């Protein structure tokens, strides 16, 4: 508890954009196959520092095989909510779940260079108190920390549907399941909300047997991965509407609502359309009558390729699918960044008109059957994947691993982890920065990035931009 609100809490997204820029980033270090313990790398992001672009500290876990993926803060700008009046928390702890082990680490990053483990929640406690497994997305919300899960109960996580559970934001005690009425929701992936408008949106990846040992091609071709998004009355904890994006739109992943809470729209990325291998972005919005709608507003075509150059999984198609695996929206709700992990491209769209996005920038890096090198001449394994935008919208960071077993199927034989950064032009456009290229220690891949003081996929704002 502090006397004043944490200086990294901002009433509006516009105020967050004017805040001091990030000096450190936190990036997942993933050991594929669990040979080494996973960790969190602290990366120096201050261009004036002697160690700029280097890993300056590592927090290595005491266990192996956790499989780190996504993570988040204990508190964000949502603490300034006028309803809960909980302004005196510190943005100090990272909540880092293992999606394979179901173990959750609480890491104290008050001093990034001395970051250390604060608390460990063992998997048994998660199972017993929630009935869920494989914790994934973290958002700090009105009643505490919300954690989405990918699995239900039982050894393979299929005993009951996955969902969201709530943790206390001060003691990190697990409180229990969030849902009171989940409706049709039977798979889970991402979620986010609009706090003043009191709605939440959640998405679907797949059930654990469909991803833990690699993608299951038969399930994909028979459209058995997730393809719906769910709208919730946030405080009533009730699913009020489910929109099926169409069974061919396989794997509806990241949910990115507009940051300005006055707006009632957002985006969702779809990995692959099984009819044509396109990647897609849907815009969802609340219509005049109060019901939710969704429309495909971006499609990205696959690139034809000689089957001889393709991994066995894709040879039958003779093409490289874009594979839209992550998207992120700048705090001014202007640019949507779309990672095409298969094709090896990062796209920038102007989404000022959310129904008519315009491609404004593109970077080629890595990619299946392409392996575009970084401008400094170094390799970038796999393709652009987890993307994070600086609060001021001027720098875009990304890494390259998707998920341990899937990396091997799409990029057989490749290994390593990199984190890069691109600068955003005054009027859009995206250029890779030649001074920023982080090569991860041998045996580690890189996944989600969090920026000190918050970024474009952590903070929820409770007041509209003025």
């Amino acid at each position, binding site marked *: 508890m502090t006397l*004043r609100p944490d200086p990294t809490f901002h*009433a509006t997204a516009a105020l967050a954009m004017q805040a001091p820029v990030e000096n450190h980033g936190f990036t997942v270090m993933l050991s594929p196959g669990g040979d080494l313990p996973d960790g969190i790398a602290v990366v120096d992001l201050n261009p004036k520092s002697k160690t700029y672009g280097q890993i300056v500290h590592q927090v290595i876990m005491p266990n192996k095989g956790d499989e780190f993926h996504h993570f988040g803060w204990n508190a964000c700008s949502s603490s300034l909510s006028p309803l*809960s009046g909980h*302004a005196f928390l510190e943005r100090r702890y990272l909540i880092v779940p293992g999606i394979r082990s179901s173990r959750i680490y609480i890491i104290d990053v008050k001093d990034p260079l001395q970051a250390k483990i604060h608390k460990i929640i063992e998997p048994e406690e998660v199972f017993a108190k929630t009935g869920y497994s494989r914790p994934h997305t973290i958002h700090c919300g009105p009643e505490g920390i919300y954690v989405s899960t990918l699995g239900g109960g039982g050894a393979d996580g299929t005993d009951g549907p996955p969902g969201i559970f709530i943790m206390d934001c001060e003691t990190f005690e697990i409180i229990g399941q969030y849902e009171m009425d989940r409706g049709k929701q039977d798979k889970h992936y991402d979620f986010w909300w609009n706090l*003043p408008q009191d709605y939440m949106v959640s998405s679907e990846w797949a059930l654990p047997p469909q991803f833990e040992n690699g993608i299951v091609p038969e399930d994909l071709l028979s459209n058995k991965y997730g393809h719906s998004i769910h709208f919730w009355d946030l405080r009533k904890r009730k699913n009020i509407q489910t929109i099926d994006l169409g069974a061919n739109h396989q794997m509806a992943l990241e949910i990115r609502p507009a940051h300005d809470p006055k707006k009632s729209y957002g985006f969702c990325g779809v990995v692959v359309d099984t009819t044509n291998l396109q990647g897609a972005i849907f815009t969802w919005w609340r219509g005049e009558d109060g019901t939710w709608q969704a429309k495909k507003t971006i499609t990205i075509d696959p690139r034809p390729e000689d089957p001889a150059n393709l991994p066995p999984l894709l040879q039958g198609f003779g093409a490289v699918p874009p594979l839209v695996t992550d998207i992120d929206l700048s705090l001014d709700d202007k640019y949507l960044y779309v990672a095409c992990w298969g094709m090896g491209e990062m796209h920038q769209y102007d989404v000022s008109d959310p129904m008519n996005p315009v491609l404004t920038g593109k970077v080629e890096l890595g990619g299946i059957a392409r392996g575009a090198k970084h401008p400094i001449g170094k390799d970038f394994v796999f393709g652009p994947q987890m993307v994070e935008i600086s609060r001021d919208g001027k720098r875009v960071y990304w890494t390259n691993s998707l998920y341990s077993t899937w990396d091997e199927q799409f990029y057989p034989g490749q290994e390593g982890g990199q984190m890069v950064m691109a600068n955003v032009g005054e009027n859009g456009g995206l250029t890779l920065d030649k001074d920023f290229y982080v090569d991860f220690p041998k045996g580690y891949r890189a996944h989600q990035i969090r920026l000190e003081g918050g970024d474009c996929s952590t903070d929820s704002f409770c*007041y509209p931009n*003025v």
Partner: protein
Amino acid sequence: MELDTSTMTALWGAVIVSGLYHGINPGMGWPLAVSAGLMEGRHVALPKALGALAAGHLLAMLAILLPFSVMSVLVGWQMEIRIGAGALVVAMGLYLLINRRHPKVLARIHPTRLVLWSFLAAMAHGAGLMLVPIYLGICGLDVGQGGHEAARQLMGPNIASAFIVALAHTAAMTVAGGLIAVAVYFWLGLRFLSRTWFNLDVVWALSLVLVGLFGIYFAYNGH
């Protein structure tokens, strides 16, 4: 008589000051009025929200004060009631000092249900209790001046003064909170919100303890 007049002035002053104090505390809701105005994008939403917050606060004050005004029929027990009430307020203050967790139930209320939110926020923070010793002080003075009225006759005026105390307090609260809300909404901007939001938890809890102790002190000394 002169002493009683100045004490009376002080007690009514306390009603107003406590109202101003509650009003400037963000925990009693002025940021909600700002948020309502901005979210709806219409100026009129701000006074509407302030009105709803005032209504909820008034109800919370009455919910606490009215039972005490009914208890005033037990005129023979006046001192015991005042000491008991003082002790209750002290206890609430101590509880808030020890239990520093925020009431999570407030986060479960829909952002547009401001009357309910304001009522529960006031109840959870013991805002009504803070008024009880002041209110009983005012009632006590009335007894002193009136001599030996029958209990039945006493209850009517005491209920009336519960309403007057609650209304005066809520009016002061609404003016204070309203001024800040209007200033932030029209001129200062939302940057002011996080800059001026001080943690009043300890001060608030200590205020309860202090008011409770004063209540007990004055009960012993016959005011």
